[in-house]
């Protein structure tokens, strides 16, 4: 489940921002000859519904049905009492309750005489939901993932501003960590607390406790921290997800170098295009690239690897999180930063 603040903040993501997204999706639905698009959500696969409504479930799951016209409908098995909370944090859709949300979707589709329904990630839709829809209406189902990805791939100002804000939360939170901590939990506890006090709706922390031996990140509080270690913060704030990885050392000489590298990444990264082009990646002088990958919102996934050394980027993304691993002066460094946030072609295209 989510563990933090979920609130409607008109100054950060306005009704008009969300309405503009809904209209773009409705135009694409009409252009594709569909009667509507159905998007599934739970707190793991929240990104599609969050983008189209600003809502993220705290627990449980639901569906959003977007028809060619009108307000989207959030269909949920959650109680009407919980529905009041849902409405208070997402005044962007109608909330409809049923122990069988799929059946209710079928009824709503029948009401408008729907014949063709697109489903984002049809293969992943819970089978019970599909059965419920088809039990009411023999509608033709098709996969609408590509349609949704194309609409979703256009960035908007509200989202990019939220990405910047969320990354700032991460950057500030890392300052609460004590690099001389003996165990991972001693470092990460104050960091996570700081993230949550800043009003994040979620924070996952993972650690690579000894970078000289292993670059893989695990959830651990008990492992001893080595000479150089890395911490990954995955933060959700107002529906936007950001990852930030920093490498740390208690050795002051190394720490100074890491700090300088981090500052340079902060300066260079936001303007990098999130287009998966290796040539654009910033690396400090003398650094040798070991590995990289690019993550971005994709379908119902808040962040998913969309490009790496072997896989080119297949479709435009609204923003990206670039993770690089490299060696510099004999030390292994891992870093993640948001990219595609400003000055780049995607932003200009969106505006």
């Amino acid at each position, binding site marked *: 489940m989510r563990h*933090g603040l979920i609130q409607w903040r008109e100054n950060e993501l306005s009704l008009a921002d969300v309405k503009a997204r809904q209209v773009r999706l409705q135009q694409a639905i009409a252009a594709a000859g569909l009667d509507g698009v159905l998007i599934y959500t739970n707190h793991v696969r929240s990104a599609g519904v969050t983008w189209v409504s600003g809502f993220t479930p705290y627990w449980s799951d639901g569906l959003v049905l977007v028809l060619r016209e009108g307000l989207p409908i959030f269909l949920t098995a959650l109680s009407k009492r919980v529905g009041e909370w849902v409405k208070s944090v997402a005044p962007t859709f109608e909330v409809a309750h049923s122990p069988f949300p799929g059946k209710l979707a079928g009824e709503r589709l029948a009401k408008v005489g729907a014949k063709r329904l697109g489903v984002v990630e049809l293969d992943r839709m819970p089978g019970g939901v599909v059965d419920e829809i088809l039990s009411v209406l023999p509608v033709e189902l098709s996969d609408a993932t590509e349609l949704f990805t194309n609409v979703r791939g256009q960035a908007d100002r509200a989202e990019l501003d939220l990405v910047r804000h969320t990354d700032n939360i991460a950057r500030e939170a890392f300052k609460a960590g004590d690099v001389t901590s003996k165990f991972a939990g001693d470092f990460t506890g104050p960091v996570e607390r700081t993230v949550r006090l800043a009003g994040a709706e979620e924070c*996952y922390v993972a650690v690579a406790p000894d970078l000289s031996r292993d670059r893989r990140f695990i959830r651990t509080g008990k492992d001893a921290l080595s000479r150089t270690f890395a911490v990954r913060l995955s933060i959700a704030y107002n529906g936007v997800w950001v990852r930030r990885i920093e490498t740390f050392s208690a050795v002051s000489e190394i720490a100074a170098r890491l700090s300088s590298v981090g500052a340079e990444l902060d300066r260079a990264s936001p303007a990098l295009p999130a287009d998966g082009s290796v040539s654009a990646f910033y690396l400090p002088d003398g650094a040798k690239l070991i590995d990289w990958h690019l993550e971005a919102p994709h379908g119902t996934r808040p962040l998913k690897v969309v490009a790496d050394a072997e896989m080119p980027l297949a479709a435009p993304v609204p923003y990206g999180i670039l993770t690089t691993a490299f060696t510099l002066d004999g030390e292994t460094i891992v870093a993640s930063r948001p990219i595609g946030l400003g000055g780049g072609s995607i932003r200009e295209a969106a505006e």
Partner: protein
Amino acid sequence: MIGEIRKKRLLEAMLEAGLDGLVLYGNAWQNDYLRYAADFGILEGEGLAVVTRDGDVTLYLDDELEGERAAVECPEVKTVVADDLIGTVSGVIARLGNSRIAAGPKRHLPYGLAAQRGDLRFEDATALVDRLLMVKSAGELNAVRSAARLADEGYAVFRNAAAVGKKDYELIAEIESFFRNEGVDDNFMIIGVGGPEVRGMAPPLGKILKPGDLVTTELTPCVNGYYVQICRTLVIGEPNEAQRKVFGIYNDALEAGLAVVKPGVTAADIARAENDIFRAHGLGEYVTSEYTRVRGHGLGLFPDTKPHILEDVNTVIEEGMSLIVHPNTYNPEIGYFVHGDSLIVRADGPEILTTTPRELFSVGARRVAA
């Protein structure tokens, strides 16, 4: 170790049911089936575990970062990362041919998996796995006991952090930070702040604690995959007469429910014992679905598992189950109120796990947030 015992029980159940394979789905919300087989606490993306009758377990994940973590955190399980999760697992199942394969949980099983199975169809594994999830082994019950200790400690942190002027999400930040430091993987937690206008608990809304508020919460820490819950209510400042009186009713209802728990009774018997107390006080309306969801529920690898404690649920309570009994509901005088304790069902009755005193806690109105 627990993972090995679970796997053995799963294979025995498959053998008894004459199954050749099992396909179990999971994500961070509904992780119990997946974790039972593969012992991995998935956080991002989705996973499928394929179990064959010869004891081979393979964990398929669609998230690279999670695949990396699984390789380190549960090296004994074979892990495969597949962007096309459905296609990959469908291919594996196809190679098993025309054998008897069950899948679950039925409601969450991805549509594409069933569609690609076509006419061969999956049998429904839901009942088979639900039974294993409900009636636990000795090792699992010990894990549940460990989680209970942290539920109590977590509530003490919550109580100590509550102060006038503090925001609800700041209170939760303290708990989450404490739990993470203690190795708690997850925590199901909702909260209510206020008076008669509060009709239920919800995620934090940014409410600021003030004198006179009731602060309700259910904390549900998860240790090694097992959840235990505690429900308590505290008052900011001295409780008033109405709050004290209402607390007495809820405490009587909790004790009445607990008193009934033993092997052989039904979930309905427990719910009825709780609800009769409310009815005796003329509050019968408030034990209906308009005001409350359940009067308790099972606990284990999912924070809200079967059996649901309701007057129309006739699941027989068995030794080895872990439950919470909580007569949580709205009260028209003072607002939503919660009170509940977790337990293990033993042959001679309930072993109460949570040890936080059953009292209406109060926090000094002069305790102000820094």
